[in-house]
């Protein structure tokens, strides 16, 4: 069995600054980290690999410093990492990103289990997993909260979707998007982290993927959606409408407001 875990390096959201005036996102002072949701995918992948005695590979697409997050993935138990990096990959939307990752997975030989986090904290789309599955022509299961069983040919999981929890069984190969409820990511041991810091990370550029993807399909060229404008809304400071005398009236008005704001229904 082979397992691939797809991760993304994202800015530390607590440190990203937003400029209301100019509509800019300033990541310069923010450190980078593995997308927190991907850590759950990584933990799941490493657990499965450890119990089945197989290999787990972490993949990421991004600039060269993405190698650091792959090293972190190795420190946390992955067997090895592959970096997809090329100037041509830049500016990719979810479609181009998914196609590129799908091409890399094809080049590896599509693994039995592909794990991804449910979404990223920067892009926040949660689309890449399902799109990759479609490009690979394999099934996917989203919002996984629990893995119930893994047998030779299939995996059984609990998916939190469709206003309920569904037990789904999928034949391999399958792509799984996982939630934070699935597990608690481990910390790396000091020793494995010390070793992983020095790990060599192979880089695949467009050239390496050329059997599986056209250059028109990657990066900005392969992206049908274009961001035309970024608006940074001003942080609203709350002003409390306060009443202590005519409470009856106040409640009526408040309920009216809440209905209008569409927040009165669970």
């Amino acid at each position, binding site marked *: 069995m082979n397992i691939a875990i797809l991760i993304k390096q994202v800015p530390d*959201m607590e440190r990203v600054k*937003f400029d209301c005036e100019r509509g800019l*996102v300033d990541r310069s002072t923010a450190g980078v980290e593995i997308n927190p949701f991907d850590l759950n995918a990584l933990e799941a992948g490493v657990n499965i690999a450890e119990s089945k005695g197989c290999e787990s590979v972490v993949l990421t697409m991004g600039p060269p410093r993405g190698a650091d997050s792959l090293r972190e993935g190795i420190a946390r138990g992955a067997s090895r990492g592959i970096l997809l990096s090329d100037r041509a990959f830049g500016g990719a939307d*979810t479609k181009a990103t998914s196609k590129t990752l799908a091409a890399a997975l094809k080049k590896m030989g599509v693994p039995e289990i592909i794990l991804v986090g449910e979404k990223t*904290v*920067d*892009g*926040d789309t*949660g*689309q*890449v*997993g*399902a*799109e990759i*599955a*479609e*490009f690979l022509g394999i*099934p*996917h299961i989203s*919002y996984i909260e629990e893995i119930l069983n893994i047998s030779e040919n299939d995996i059984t999981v609990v998916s*939190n*979707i*469709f206003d*309920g*929890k*569904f*037990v*789904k*069984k*999928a*034949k391999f190969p*399958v792509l799984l*998007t996982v939630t934070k409820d699935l597990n608690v990511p481990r910390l790396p041991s000091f020793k494995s982290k010390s070793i992983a810091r020095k790990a060599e990370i192979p880089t695949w550029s467009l050239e390496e993927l050329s059997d599986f993807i056209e250059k028109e399909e990657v990066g900005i060229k392969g992206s*049908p*959606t*274009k961001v035309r404008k*970024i*608006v940074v*809304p001003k942080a609203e400071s709350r*002003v*409390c*409408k*306060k*009443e*202590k005398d005519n*409470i009856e009236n*106040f*409640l*009526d008005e*408040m*309920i009216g*407001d*809440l*209905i209008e*704001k*569409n*927040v*009165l*229904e*669970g």
Partner: protein
Amino acid sequence: MINDVKKIVILAEQKKGKIHKVTYELLGKAAELIASFPEGQFEKDVIVLGSDQLNLDEILHHGADKIYHIAANSFDMPDEWLYKENICELLKQIQPEMLLVGATTFGRSLAPRIAAALETGLTADCTELMIDTDGKLIQIRPAFSDNILAHIKTETLPQMATIRYKEFAPAEWTDEVNGEIIKVDAYVKGNELIEILEELEESEFDISDAHIVISAGKGIKSKEDMKMIYELAECLKADVGASRAIVDEGYIDKSHQVGYSGNRVKPSLYIACGVSGAPQHLAGMKESDVIVAINSDASAPIFEVSDYGIVGDVYKVVPMLIERLRSKEI
């Protein structure tokens, strides 16, 4: 079937015959978008997948021009692959200009599969849609953990987006119905690769997912008095939260505690009843969309983070609120 009338297609989600309400909101928005084009240029169609018996009249009353009902019992389960196969087959005939999907969990999982299959772009989780001067859709969505709004356009067809629930007003219900229901037998009925074994019983309580939280604080004097909090919660289909003091008193289980050392919640509505607003509590709820506070101490810190503050006895105000909500049958 290609003709001159262009289409906005809405993918409706139904579970056990119940249409998800985001569908009506999308119909409302579609009507608004269509109004920026010359009359007759666009129609708004709905695709629904579900069993043969599905009653779709409600959708007609909300202004759909055509409803395509793809019928098979296997659509009672959320099988993205099966849905995708059928929808894509139908879309070959419809050739829509725009395809809108509610950003429910299933919608978010299904839409990207469809987009990839159609080789088109997809914008996730939109909160606003507009028509640009070139007649194309401007899709507005929050990103970076809701800190920015991106305006996005799609160069391929259909222009596809998932849209958040409760962002738009639903289309008005009209007596008169002009649309028609077109029933189609499912193109593909089974899926070899995925088997959905069962739907599990309701899950354990997790207040951090709540849409509305009614929270009790020290102003509530006994476990018995929590009743009125539960009543208020019932009126609004809300979950009950509590400050640490109330949990420590044993009035309610720890899983309901909101605060720094408890759960952090971000509901669309948070009603704090008799909560004074210690920093430890505020840390767990101040990100809520709308905050209402009821407290007899006019200087209580909770008012600093609230949108609506009622300075009064929680034992009087909560029953008043319950009475009003009941009479409105919300």
